[in-house]
């Protein structure tokens, strides 16, 4: 029953539309999540996800059977979001205001909900601040669980570069997310916090680098 992505894609290339349905169900959310975290805009992420799969269908013949389907579709997604970014270069990224209300969980108290959404906003902003070269591999690794090798294939980079980009990106993120990572210290002893508690986290790596 569970055929590999490559087998399904091959069938789809031969004209079997049900194979595409399976593939679509497997990947649509993953692709959407990747694009959403990359551009932080829901409606556009949805549109781009459609575009990715439309491109997959339209240019199905372009897929070479020996390559991995997973990296192929992420690559399409990456290219689509790139051209989208180029197209809307002049547009200012706006935060999705709806998001905060959207994932309201009943199990959390109102205070906790606010806290959660604040953390989310922090992460979102931190990732947005991050250089795209660091951000994209981190998103794929942290959220989608792709291997370094797969990421290297998607971005057409050596594995070593991917490794160092993920590490540096994370260090950068750590710096950006200090208030989230050490909320207690941050709140209690604000002036001292940077030198004492986060000393290792922020200063040490930058010295070592």
């Amino acid at each position, binding site marked *: 029953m569970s055929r590999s992505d490559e087998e399904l894609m091959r069938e789809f290339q031969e004209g079997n539309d049900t194979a595409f349905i399976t593939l679509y169900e497997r990947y649509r959310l993953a692709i959407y*999540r990747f694009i959403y975290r990359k551009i932080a805009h829901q409606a556009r992420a949805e549109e781009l996800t459609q575009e990715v799969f439309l491109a997959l269908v339209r240019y199905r013949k372009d897929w070479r059977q020996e390559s991995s389907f997973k990296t192929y579709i992420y690559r399409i997604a990456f290219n689509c979001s790139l051209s989208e970014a180029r197209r809307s270069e002049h547009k200012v990224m706006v935060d999705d205001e*709806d*998001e905060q209300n959207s994932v309201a969980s009943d199990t959390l108290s109102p205070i906790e909900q606010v806290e959660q959404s604040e953390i989310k906003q922090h992460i979102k902003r931190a990732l947005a601040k991050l250089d795209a070269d660091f951000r994209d591999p981190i998103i794929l690794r942290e959220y989608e669980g792709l291997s370094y090798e797969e990421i290297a294939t998607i971005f057409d980079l050596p594995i070593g570069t991917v490794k160092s980009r993920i590490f540096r990106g*994370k260090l950068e993120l*750590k710096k950006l997310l200090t208030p989230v990572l050490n909320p207690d210290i941050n709140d209690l002893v604000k002036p001292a916090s940077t030198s004492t508690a986060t000393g290792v986290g922020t200063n040490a790596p930058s010295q070592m680098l």
Partner: protein
Amino acid sequence: MKCETKCEMILEELQAFIDNELPQERHNEVLAHLNECSECTRMVEELEELSMVMQKWDVPEPSLPTAQQVLAAAKPSGGIFFRFLQQFYELPFKLKAPLLAAATALVLLFISVVQDQPNLKSRPSRAPESVAVKPHSPIPNIQEESYREAAKEIEELKRDRALQDQIASSQDSSVGGGVAGSVIGGVNAPVVISPTLVTPAEAPSKPASADNVESFAMISKNSVEKQDYRVKVSSKDLQPTDRLIIKSANLTLETENFDDSKTKAAELATSNGGFVTRLQVSTQGRARVADISVKVPARNFEKVVNEIRRFGKSVQELVEGQDVTDQYLNVFDEVQSEQQLEQDVRKSVEADKSNSYEKLYAQRQLREIARQRAALERQLQQLRDGAALSTINIRLEEKSSSILAVAPGQELTVGQQIKLAFVNGFRNLFSLILPIVLFVGEAGLSIIFCSLLIYGLYWIGKKYVNKREKRVYQFSSSETRDWTK
């Protein structure tokens, strides 16, 4: 110290260690180091914590189309035209630009062809205009009245003819006296034919009754505008004509195939029933010049002139049509009266049986009259010949395409040759650039216009394709909007 260097070496790999992306050997090494080094352990913990925190950013539930919807949307929409447009706009700029340029060129070509159409149509009617005969000819002016006059004259002539016949039948030999009075249009109209103007409309009604009287002028309102004025002059008979026009043309042409044109000009004259009266070739500077005079029948005049124009670039041109009708009629009149006088004198001389001095005097007078009449007739003949045969003077100037094309027999020194080569080179360069400059100057506006037109079409097409594509992608936009509410 030892630890620090080790830390430095290992730090970069800590994330990979957490992600389990290190080779087993290296993984074990890092693991061993972490057991010793608390700072690195802390680093690992922090990185792990960061990953944990990052996981808190969950994504909102998307509203994505179903797989079927995607498949349906991916199917090429629209007709062949839309798909073609889509394909076109997806082409790289490198390919699109020449295609657009070609389209612009096509539009230019199309416009030029369309604009040229009326010119092509009007060419035949333009040709006779360019021969400056029409403006010189008084016929269009006299035409209106002469039309009616001619009809009247014909009627009168017919009556006169009937009268003449009666007289002739009664007194066989002595016709002169009876007819002398019938003067039509300032011309004596005895047994000989009178010059009149007859319209084609009148023509069929007339010849039956008046056998000897013929209509020669074939000029009507329409024919004046359409046809060239054909001069019907035969050198044999004393045949009156419509309008006697002596046509002449002086053409100076620059030609590259000098010898060819020269022989062709002579051939043209002979093939059109004419002949060459003079052919002189001389050399002016480096170029040869040929002066050719040809005579061609008047009816072929325009045709020959037009043919000759094709020999080369016209430098100077003069086409004349000299109306000598009045002159002809006057001379004709004089000839008539001289004839009359001669007849009268001869009759009286013959009647006088005596051999008196008066008779001798009269005979001498008769000779004088005859001589004068002959002179007048010669003049008449000249006028007829002039009208029958038109003169065309052609001056052909050799146009050397290269300054180095030296007239045969001339030799140049090396220095001269080099100089000439430079001059020639610049000349050629100029002649290469000039058309471009002229083209851009003259066609610049239309080029800009066409480019704008094509660009406008391109832009509209692009908008159209984008709009349709957008529509394809936005099949779930309503759902998205619903979701955001």
